[in-house]
């Protein structure tokens, strides 16, 4: 654990502090604004990271990642309009409290929950990452391939009711990653004779287009804000309410742990974390009947869980190099663009960087809490900015950012095409995360596939001959099939309880 102090100085360096404060403020802003979310903030800032050191760039983006979840609670509580999807659970109790004139109580609970969840998850990250890294140190190409493929497939499976679309988008994403010159063989692939295509499709342009432009175009079509209902008694948080919130420390602790471990899994993300933590808190509460009518405990549970997800998602990213969802996929992109390849050796090779990340995460949580607590009303007022102005500004800044990276019009064209495609997918409510996973994971999976096939002399049977690959596949299969098996089991139990007609025909559901 000595390495924890290696990054202390770097984390508290002026440029890192500036980056994480800017990132956190941007995260809070995009989190407060319904319809944008941390992904848009991250991709808009992505082009700015190229001139920064890896640790500073990651602090900037992690600030957006964590800040977004902090900010999402504000409109959920004040307007019943969640800033990020997972904050919808916060609104179950937050908005009834606001309607009763207790908005400050709800906001205190949400902010304390967010801070507590964030801190708990960082502790788990620090403890668990070396353990997982130790296991992953014995990984060879087949194990990495199994882990990467099944990580990507689990993201697809997470959208159970859109399995076909998820698979389709994953395939497209993987294919998009192959366009351009193939590194090992130097063969041009799918360039259609265009010189510009030889460099491949820029990752930043694709991701910025899909989310920055696609999401902003969608924002134009949504008139979802009801800003006339903002009810806040003072400019800052009422700190006297915080002590009352600390009564729910058990809920906070439990929800933080739940959020971290759900964040570990590829796919489910913060929405599931919030729902599960809320449900568990309700079951364990002495007054479960108050849930949904306006209890601060509900806000604590939901916010602690969703704010624990970022650190949880960092665990497989740092130890295996496998992102669990779109936001950590962007972080993986930043790592690789800086020539750093996350995996079990990362903790050995780059202890200072990892340590800096841990300290930065800690600082981000504290900064987000402090900034939002002190400037609560100004941040809440951001929702009054017209969505049209936001959308136009986000698209313009995205395009400037893409152009600034290589000063190539071609990259802007890629971003605009990706934006149109992203808009269509978002409007159809398809799992865009599968596409991003494919784009980011494509080169990693292809490399591992080549190495595995070379080891197996052209045969993939090597995957079934190694205990670790078998174990990975078994775990993934278990995770993928457990909800389905549980649903089947619940269905058959319901069928058993219903009085039969003697014909043995299952009841119609």
């Amino acid at each position, binding site marked *: 654990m000595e390495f924890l102090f290696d990054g202390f100085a770097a984390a508290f360096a002026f440029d890192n502090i500036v980056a994480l404060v800017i990132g956190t403020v941007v995260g809070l802003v995009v989190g407060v604004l319904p319809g944008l979310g941390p992904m848009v903030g991250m991709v808009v800032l992505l082009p700015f990271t190229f001139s920064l050191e890896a640790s500073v760039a990651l602090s900037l983006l992690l600030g957006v990642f964590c800040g977004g979840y902090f900010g999402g609670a504000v409109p959920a509580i004040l307007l019943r309009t969640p800033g990020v999807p997972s904050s919808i659970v916060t609104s179950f109790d937050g908005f009834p409290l606001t309607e009763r004139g207790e908005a400050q109580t709800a906001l205190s609970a949400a902010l304390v929950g967010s801070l507590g969840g964030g801190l708990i998850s960082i502790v788990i990250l620090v403890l668990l990452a070396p353990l997982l890294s130790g296991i992953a140190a014995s990984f060879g190409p087949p194990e990495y391939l199994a882990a990467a493929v099944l990580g990507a497939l689990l993201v697809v499976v997470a959208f159970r009711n859109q399995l076909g679309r998820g698979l389709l988008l994953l395939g497209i994403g993987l294919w998009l990653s192959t366009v351009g010159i193939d590194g090992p063989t130097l063969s041009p692939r799918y360039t259609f004779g265009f010189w510009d295509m030889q460099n491949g499709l820029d990752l930043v342009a694709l991701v910025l287009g899909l989310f920055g432009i696609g999401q902003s175009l969608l924002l134009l*079509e949504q008139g979802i804000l009801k800003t006339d209902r903002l009810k806040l008694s003072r400019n800052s948080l009422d700190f006297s309410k915080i002590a009352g919130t600390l009564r729910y420390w058990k809920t906070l602790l439990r929800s933080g742990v739940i959020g971290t471990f759900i964040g570990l899994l590829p796919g489910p993300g913060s929405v599931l974390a919030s729902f599960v933590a809320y449900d568990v808190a309700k079951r364990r509460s002495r007054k479960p009947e108050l849930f949904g009518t306006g209890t601060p405990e509900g806000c604590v549970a939901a916010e602690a869980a969703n704010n624990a997800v970022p650190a949880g998602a960092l665990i497989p990213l740092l130890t295996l190099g496998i992102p669990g969802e779109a936001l950590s996929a962007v972080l993986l992109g930043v790592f690789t663009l800086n020539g750093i390849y996350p995996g079990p050796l990362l903790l050995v090779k780059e202890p200072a960087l990892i340590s800096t990340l841990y300290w930065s995460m800690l600082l981000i949580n504290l900064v987000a809490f402090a900034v939002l607590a002190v400037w609560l009303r100004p941040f809440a007022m951001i929702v009054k900015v017209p969505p049209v102005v936001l959308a136009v500004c986000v698209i313009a800044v995205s395009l400037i950012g893409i152009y600034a990276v290589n000063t190539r019009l071609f990259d802007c064209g890629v971003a605009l095409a990706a934006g149109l495609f992203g808009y269509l997918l978002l409007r159809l409510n398809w799992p865009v995360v599968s596409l991003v996973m494919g784009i980011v994971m494509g080169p990693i999976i292809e490399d591992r596939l080549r190495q595995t096939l070379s080891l197996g002399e052209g045969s993939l049977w090597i995957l079934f001959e190694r205990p670790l690959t078998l174990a990975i596949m078994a775990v993934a299969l278990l995770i993928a099939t457990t909800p389905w098996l549980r649903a089947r089991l619940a269905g058959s139990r319901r069928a058993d309880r219903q009085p039969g007609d003697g014909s043995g025909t299952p009841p119609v559901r």
Partner: protein
Amino acid sequence: MSDSGAVPPAAEPPPMPALAAGSGAGAAHDLVAALLGLAALALLAASPWLVDQSGPDPFYKGPLIFPLIALALAAAGAAPAGWRLLRRATAPGDWQVDGRGFPRAAAGLFAVMCAFPVLILALGLQVAVFLALLGGLWAAGWRRPLAAPAVALVLALLVHLAFRTFLDIWFPTPLLGDWLRL
């Protein structure tokens, strides 16, 4: 729902709900999936001609194997939608993505933004930002004679400060400057 996706309000239905994903309602979903699947199939078939195969032998070390797997995966994902589309008699109303008709604001803004990178090249960063924002706000339906130019001016200034002053990023000399010199 994706973490990064648009968020509907908890209490009231959004004015523009996307179709219930996975509900099977609306042939638009199946049509888009089938078209993407067809494109993947076409690329799959054309891959031997679109990928230079002068690389190493054996095949599994070459540049073609992974794209083939990716495209096959995409085609397999689209197959159920294609099958449903072939079997189902679709009512004309089902082809609407949602009930709000053609997205004029989004289309208008997108058209303006397509011209934006060319404007940067021709007129320079700051002028292009001002004009694109003005045009974008107008195309998106925000037509306030004083506020729109003010917003455009403020963003142009912020962009100049962020990209030129603070980050010191190089942008090519605008073509207009070259033309005027000629």
